[in-house]
C-alpha cells in the first residue's frame, strides 16, 4: 500500500496484485474461519464473511489487471491509485465481517472515501470531477443518517454489538419506535450504497463520469460489500424485528427494478446504461432480502458474483473497443463482430447472463432469488420481476445487436491487449463454470 511513496511505477501493479492474491489465499485458509467474534467483538470471520471477502478480492484482482492498461499514461500518483483500490476493498471486507455497528461504520467509510478520490482520478475530465464531487456530497450526507440511526439504536439497546442488539430486540416484547426509526435510518444508508430507489439518483451520473475501471469497481465490489453488510445487519443484528421491514423492502425492490429497467431502455452511453442496469439488479437482489431464509446469503453471494463478472466483461470489452474509438456510446460497438468474433462472444455471454437467459449463470441466480421471494409469499413481486426481466432484454440485446451490425467504416481495428484478454478469458470461463455448476457457490454458506 505504501509503494506509492517510493514512486516505483513499474513495481506498483505487481506488488498490489501480489498483495491481493496473498489476501485472497489467506482469506480462504481454514485457520481464518472462526465462528466467534475477534478483536474484542469487533469482527467475526464466519463463513459468510470469508466467502464474501473472497468474492470481493477476486473481483478486485481482475479489475486491477484491467487498470494496468487504463492507467498506463498516468505518470504520477499511480501507487496512490492502487493503494486506494486496496483501502477500499479492505473497507468492504470490514463491512461484511463486522460484528459491531462502529466497526461497520468504519468499514463503510474506508470503502467510500477512497472511492470519492478514485472517481475524480481522471483529473482533466470535467465529468470525472463532477462525479467525484457528487458522490462525495451525497455520500457524506447519507453518512449522517447512518450515524443518527446508530445513535438511536445504541440509545435503546445500550450496545453497538450485533449480538447484544439482537438479544435486546428478542427479549423486548414491544420494540420502541425509536429503535425502528434508528434501523430505518441505517437502512437508508444501505439503500443509498446499493443505489436502490429512492436514493439512486447519484448512480447514473457518478458511473458515467468516473473512469471505467472505477465505475466497474463501484458497480461490483462496492455494491457486493454493501449487500454483504446489509445482509449481515439484517440477519445478525435486527433479525427479531426484521419482519417489520420486509414490506418496505418489497416495495422499494419493486420500485428500484422498475425504475432501473425503464430508464435503461433509452440510454446510448454504455456506462450510463450499465448504471441503470446496476440499479435494476439491485432491485432483483432486494427480492432475496424480503424474507431471509437459510439460503438467502448464498443466493445473494452467487447473484452478486455472477452480476459482477458480467459487468467486468462488459467493461473490458468496452475498454478494448474504446482504445480505437474514444467514444462511450454503444454505437461504438458497431462492426465488432466483423473484426473480433471472440470478443463479441464474451460480450454476448455477459449480456445474456445479465438479461437472465438460461442456461447462463445470470439465469440461475435470478431463479434462486425468485424462489427465495416466493417462499415468503411475495408472488406479486416475482411476477413483476419476471416482467422486468423481459424489459431488460430490450436494452441488453440492444448492446449485443450493435456488435453484429456492420459499421460504415468497415471492420474496426481493435488492438490486442494482454491484460484485457486475460481478464476476458478468466471471467468468461468463470461465468460458464458458474452457470453449469452453480453449486460451487450456491451451497457454500
Amino acid at each position, binding site marked *: 500500500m505504501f509503494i506509492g511513496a517510493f514512486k516505483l511505477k513499474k513495481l506498483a501493479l505487481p506488488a498490489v496484485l501480489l498483495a491481493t492474491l496473498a489476501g485472497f489465499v489467506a482469506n480462504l485458509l481454514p485457520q481464518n474461519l472462526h465462528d466467534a467474534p475477534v478483536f474484542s467483538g469487533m469482527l467475526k470471520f464466519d463463513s459468510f464473511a470469508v466467502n464474501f471477502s473472497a468474492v470481493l478480492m477476486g473481483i478486485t484482482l481482475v479489475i486491477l489487471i484491467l487498470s494496468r492498461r487504463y492507467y498506463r499514461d498516468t505518470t504520477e500518483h499511480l501507487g496512490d491509485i492502487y493503494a486506494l483500490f486496496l483501502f477500499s476493498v479492505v473497507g468492504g471486507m470490514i463491512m461484511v465481517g463486522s460484528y459491531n455497528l462502529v466497526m461497520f461504520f468504519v468499514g463503510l467509510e474506508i470503502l467510500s472515501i477512497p472511492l470519492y478520490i478514485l472517481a475524480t482520478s481522471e483529473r482533466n475530465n470535467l465529468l470525472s470531477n463532477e462525479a467525484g464531487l457528487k458522490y462525495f456530497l451525497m455520500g457524506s450526507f447519507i453518512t449522517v443518517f447512518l450515524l443518527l440511526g446508530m445513535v438511536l439504536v445504541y440509545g435503546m439497546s445500550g450496545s453497538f454489538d450485533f449480538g447484544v442488539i439482537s438479544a435486546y430486540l428478542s427479549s423486548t416484547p414491544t420494540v420502541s419506535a425509536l429503535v425502528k426509526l434508528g434501523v430505518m435510518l441505517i437502512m437508508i444508508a444501505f439503500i443509498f450504497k446499493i443505489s436502490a430507489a429512492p436514493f439512486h439518483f447519484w448512480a447514473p451520473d457518478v458511473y458515467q463520469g468516473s473512469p471505467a475501471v472505477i465505475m466497474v469497481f463501484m458497480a461490483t465490489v462496492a455494491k457486493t460489500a454493501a449487500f454483504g453488510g446489509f445482509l449481515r445487519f439484517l440477519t445478525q443484528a435486527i433479525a427479531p424485528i426484521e419482519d417489520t421491514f420486509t414490506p418496505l423492502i418489497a416495495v422499494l425492490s419493486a420500485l428500484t427494478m422498475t425504475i432501473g429497467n425503464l430508464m435503461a431502455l433509452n440510454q446510448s452511453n454504455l456506462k450510463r446504461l450499465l448504471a441503470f442496469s446496476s440499479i435494476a439488479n439491485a432491485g432483483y437482489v432486494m427480492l432475496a432480502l424480503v424474507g431471509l431464509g437459510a439460503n438467502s446469503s448464498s443466493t445473494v453471494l452467487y447473484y452478486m458474483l455472477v452480476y459482477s463478472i458480467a459487468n467486468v466483461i462488459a467493461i473490458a470489452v468496452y475498454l478494448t473497443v474504446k482504445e480505437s474509438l474514444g467514444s462511450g456510446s454503444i454505437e461504438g460497438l458497431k462492426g465488432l463482430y466483423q473484426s473480433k*468474433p471472440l470478443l463479441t*462472444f464474451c460480450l454476448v455471454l455477459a449480456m*445474456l447472463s445479465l438479461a437472465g437467459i*438460461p*442456461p447462463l449463470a445470470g439465469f440461475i441466480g435470478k*431463479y434462486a432469488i425468485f424462489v427465495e421471494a416466493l417462499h415468503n409469499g411475495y408472488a406479486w413481486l416475482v*411476477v413483476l420481476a*419476471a416482467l422486468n426481466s423481459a424489459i431488460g432484454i430490450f436494452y441488453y440485446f440492444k448492446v449485443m445487436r450493435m456488435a453484429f451490425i456492420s459499421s460504415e467504416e468497415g471492420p474496426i481495428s481493435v488492438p490486442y491487449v494482454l491484460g484485457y484478454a486475460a481478464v476476458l478469458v478468466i471471467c468468461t470461463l468463470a461465468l460458464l463454470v458458474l452457470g453449469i455448476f452453480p*453449486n460451487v457457490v450456491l451451497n457454500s454458506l
Partner: protein
Amino acid sequence: MLTTLLLFIPIIGGLILTLIPGSSATRWQALFISAVAAGVSVYMATQYVPSAATQFEIKAEWIPSLGIGYHVGADGISMVLLLLTNLLTPLILLSTFKQEFDHKGLFYGLLLIMQGSMTGVFVSLDLFLYYIFWELALIPAYFLVLLWGSGNHRKTSLKFFIYTLVGSLLMLVAIIFLSQQWNPSSFDVSNVHQVNLSPEAAIFVLMAFMLAYAIKIPLFPFHTWQPDTYTEAPTAGTMMLSGIMLKMGLFSIIRWVLPVVTQTLAEQRTWMIWLIVIGIAYASIIAIQQKNLKRLFAYSSIAHVGLIAAGILTMTPEGLNGSMLQMFAHGVNAVGLFYICAILMDRTQTNEIAALGGIRNLAPWFATTYFVVLLGSVALPLTNGFPGEFMLLSSLFKYNWVWTLVAGSGVILGAVYMFKSYQGVMLGETKVAAFPDLDIWDKVVLVPIVIAIILMGIMPDVITRIAQPSIEHLLQSL
C-alpha cells in the same frame, strides 16, 4: 449414457464451431457432428424396446439445494421426436452446402446448438432442465434470424424473441410454483405428474403453460410473429423452426400439461379447441391470398400444427397417435417445402408466385419432387400426411362434428392453395429465363424427403409402433 451423448455431441461441437473462424471445411465438420448424433439416435431407436417404460434413463443431482436434478431419458413419444430432430438436422445442414454466406463457423455452430438443445427438450425428465433447454433453443434461433435474415429481419428477430420469451417467463413462474408444492422443492417428472393443485392454482398452471406453447407452436391468436419470422429467416433457420422447433410446443403439451392438470384441461379444452379450429380455417383462408411462396407455406404451417394441437387436446389414443404421425410428417414436409423455396430463391432471386411460372418444362426433377412434397402436405392417401391427418380429424369427430367440419375445411382449402401455388410456379407460361434442374446437392436433400414421404404413407406403422405403448400408458394414467 446414450442420451447424454446425444445431447452434448451437438452442443459442444456447436460451441467449438462458433468459436473458430469459418472455412470451407466448416460445413463438413458440422455435418459430421450432426450425423454422429443422428447415428446415435438411430442406434437408440433400434435398441428401444416398444413398451411403456422410460428407457436410456440417467438421474443425477445437479443443484440439490434447489431440488434440480439432471434427469434424462426417452419414452416412445420422445423417441419419435428424437429421431425427427436428429435425422432432419443433417438434411437441413446439407441444404445450405451450396450457399455462400459470412461467418460460416457461427452459422453452423448455432444450428448444431439448436439441434442439441431441442434434443434436450425432448429427453428432459426434470422440469427445470427442460426449461433450460427450452430457452437455450431460442438463442441460436434469434441469432440466425438476426444475422442471416433478409428484409426487416432485425425487428422481426427481436419481436420473435420477446414474444416467445414472455410466454416462457410466465411458464417459468408456473414451474417455480409447481416445484414449491413439494418439500424440499422438486422438479422431477415423477413428482410433477402427481401434483395435487387447488382448482384456481390448476387454472393458473394450465394457462401459463398453454400460453407458452400456444406462442411457440404457434396457435391462433398468438401466431403473429410466425409469418414474418419464417419469411425473413434464412432458409435453414426456417426449416429448423418449422420442421423441429414448433414440435417442442406440441410435445410439451403431451409431456407437461396432459398428465399434470388433466382435470382442468378436460374442463377448459372446449373453448381452446374452438379457437384452434377457427385458427385452422383462418390461416388457410389467409394462405390462399398470399403472393409470396414462403409466406404461403408459413401460413399453411399454422393450419397444420393447429390440427395437431387440437388432436392432442382430445386426449384420445387416436388423437395422440395421429399427432405423433403428423408431427413427424409435418417436419419432413416443412423441410421439403422450405427447401423448394430456397431453390427458387437461389435460381430466380424471388419467391413471388406471380413472377414465376412454367418451370416444370425446364426442370422435370424439380417438378416431380415438388409435386410429391406437395401431395404429402395436402395429405393425399399413400403419402405421409394422410394417416396422421385422418386420425386427427376422426378424433375430433368423436367430440363435436362441427370441429371436424371447420378443421376439415382447412384441409380442403389446403389443397386449394397448395395446388394454386403449384400452378402459379410450375405450370403456365414460362416467365423465367433459365432454370437449371436439381443438381446433386439438391437431390441429396430432396430424395430422402421424397422417399420418407412415400414410405411413411405406406407404412405409418414405423412411427406408431414406437410411440403407441407410451401413449396408451399415458392415457391410462390420467
